[in-house]
């Protein structure tokens, strides 16, 4: 995706520009909501796709939503918010809001009750940090803990396709930064009308590895928590 910037407005615009990569996860209702929800539920509960701590990542979605993040990027060992900040200081208030929101525990929707049992407490013990993000050098709120595994490191796109089928669309996204180093180029495999995106990165140690899975926070959260979020 290419976004225009206007000369002197570049510095201001760059933050909008940087926010777009993860905002891509915003779903559009091109397919029926019921069908989308069932697809999301199926993918989220697919055995072999996720790591042992993925339920805790799902449990954190309402907090991300209240903190205003439209999407989160799930990496094998951490969760990264979509909102880019220019400094660690400016990210701090978002991190505080995120931590406070973790204390609010909505009940899970029926299909996810068993899966999320005890996970809200688990996510409360997670470590929330502000880290500089390789993609665009911005500062992001992240959640992780020791030995966290949200999906298996080494998971490949081929394995994903064997588990949940072919994506609805595959697109490429260049994530520009203010610097002129090689940009991160993501190959986005879109599922459930974009509510869930499996992304490869050209910076990955091997071609074909899943680098991150991008979840549309409002859409996926609605499926997992229903109206109680």
């Amino acid at each position: 995706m290419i976004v225009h910037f206007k000369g002197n407005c570049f510095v201001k615009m760059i933050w909008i520009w940087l926010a777009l990569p993860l905002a891509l996860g915003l779903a559009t209702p091109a397919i029926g909501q019921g069908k989308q929800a069932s697809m999301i539920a199926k993918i989220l509960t697919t055995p072999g796709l996720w790591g042992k701590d993925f339920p805790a990542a799902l449990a954190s979605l309402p907090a991300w939503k209240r903190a205003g993040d439209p999407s989160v990027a799930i990496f094998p060992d951490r969760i990264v918010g979509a909102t880019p900040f220019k400094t660690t200081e400016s990210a701090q208030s978002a991190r505080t809001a995120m931590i406070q929101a973790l204390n609010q525990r909505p009940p899970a929707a029926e299909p996810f009750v068993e899966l999320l049992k005890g996970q809200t407490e688990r996510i409360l013990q997670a470590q929330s940090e502000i880290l500089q993000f390789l993609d665009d050098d911005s500062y992001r709120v992240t959640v992780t803990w020791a030995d966290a595994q949200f999906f298996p490191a080494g998971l490949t796109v081929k394995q994903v396709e064997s588990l949940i089928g072919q994506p609805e669309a595959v697109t490429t996204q260049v994530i520009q930064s203010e610097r002129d180093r090689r940009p991160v180029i993501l190959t986005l495999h879109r599922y459930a009308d974009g509510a869930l995106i499996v992304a490869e990165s050209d910076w990955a140690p091997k071609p074909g590895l899943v680098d991150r899975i991008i979840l549309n926070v409002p859409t996926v959260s609605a499926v997992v928590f229903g109206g109680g979020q």
Partner: protein
Amino acid sequence: MRISFRLDRRFRTSRAQFVAAALILAGPAEGLGATIVDVATDATDPSNLADTEPSIAVNPVDPMKIAIVSFSETWGPSAMAPVWKSDNGGASWRKVPQIPQPAPGSSGPGDQKIAFDATGKLYIAELGSGPRDFIYRQTGGPDDPLTPGVAYGDDQPHLDIDKTTGGSCLNRLYSPWLNFGLANPRSTVSDSTNFGVGMTDVAVGNPAFPNRTTRIALSSDGKAYVVYKTREGSAPFSLPGSAGSDFENAHFNVMRSDDCGVTWSALGATGVSVHGSAPVQTLFTNNFGNQTKGKVARARSSDAWIAVDPVNGHVFVAYVSRDTTGFSQIYVARSIDQGASWTSTRITNGIHHAGYPNIAINEDGAIGVLYIDFDDSGSTTLFRHHFARSIYYGATWSDDILQTMDPGPLANAASGFLWGDYEGLTAAGSNFYGVFTGQSIGRSVAQLDPIFFKVVDERSPLQYAIKFVCGKSEPPVLAPGEYFTAINVHNPARQPAALKKKIAMALPGEKAGAVTHFFGARLDPDEALEIDCPDILKHASVKGFVKGFVVLETLSQLDVVAVYTATGETGRVETLFLERVPQRGLRTDQ
């Protein structure tokens, strides 16, 4: 797949038909022979990677050995990033994994540039995540894992190494980069006396503005030059299909170091603008192309390159300027006084937007410029990789299209980046060697690949062999006396002439003597030079009485006259003889 062709009118039609799927040739240049090879194959690139932002270097010890880096595989804890290598002048390529992860947790390559030293050892400047740069040096065999040096620097590290044997800066390694740790990003040059084991940072550029596009070139006299740009605010002009500004005001300045990189103030604190005091408008965009008609490219630090004539030290800068045509154009500025003053010439035709210039000078004084323009007059945007060449110091130019490409159907061509910020061009001997990220040739899946090209000057060189006799002789070889030879060389043409000269010693007793390597020289129109006995003795590193031939080779017709004098017991001239030396033609393979 390898395609060879001569870019002349006789071959144009049939060859163009032959390569129609991959290449479109236009604007043939007389006597220019080009070979184009897709560096990657289905076997060496099974994942169909984009292989962008390539860099090329030719081994000075053996020009058949060529190395290229591009964004191919990455390094990791148990994986090394590759170097593409050819051992046969670029005809075929292999992929050698030899760039290990420089530090735990580092991802990369993020930016890279490749070079050889005078002995043919390989070096690569690499940017890893962090961001930190590393110089990789060859400490083992040519294909063994390279050894990373100390962490230094930041964005877009470049690289060059002084190769002048006997020079005061031999083996000095220079790596320009951009320091983003300041309010105004600052051009910086790190130098090393131990090939990157340790690096010393020296701020260059102009702190009053954000800097960008820092490139380096080294002269055979030990002087080092960098060109950089100052970003001075946006200019209200758009590329086709774009709504915002895609240009900014800038100066392209050259700075010089006369002390092996310790200081860079030889041309003043911030250097000399190559285009005068007024700023130019240059590209700063992620929209190079027409986004309503296909994919577009990033062009932000893709607007300047620098090279030095290896013989006379003249400095050349290729840069982008949106001029009165309304199009971003490629200009070449030349300085004959070590960067103090400059004269610019436009080399593009004023009817298409162009950018990404790389420039190199070969030993014959020919200037080569690799650049990209686009034609959006049809339904899709066509990007064209050009090779422009001037054999007359920029007075006239030929221009050939190496490849025309529509990246739209290429799955691994990412709009907003495409080939990267720059490509690769260098010269060795009389040849130009280049690499660009273009459309694959002969691959199962059409894609972006690194495309190597070699341009050979196929004009037949002329040779002049001039007998010389120098020094005091003793019988029985020659009559007693002191002999002198003065060789006068005049360029009668209206264009500059490049020549190279070597000394072939002749020994008595029917023995062959030593032959020196070539020494270069340049003559502007109507200029003349003289080669005397002291010059011959110096080049041949001999003393006393010597005889043999001075051999001149050139692509231009010259007036060559030898003047022979001898003195006897009086010490006054007793004989004088003038000989106009005839030329002979050499085949290009001689």
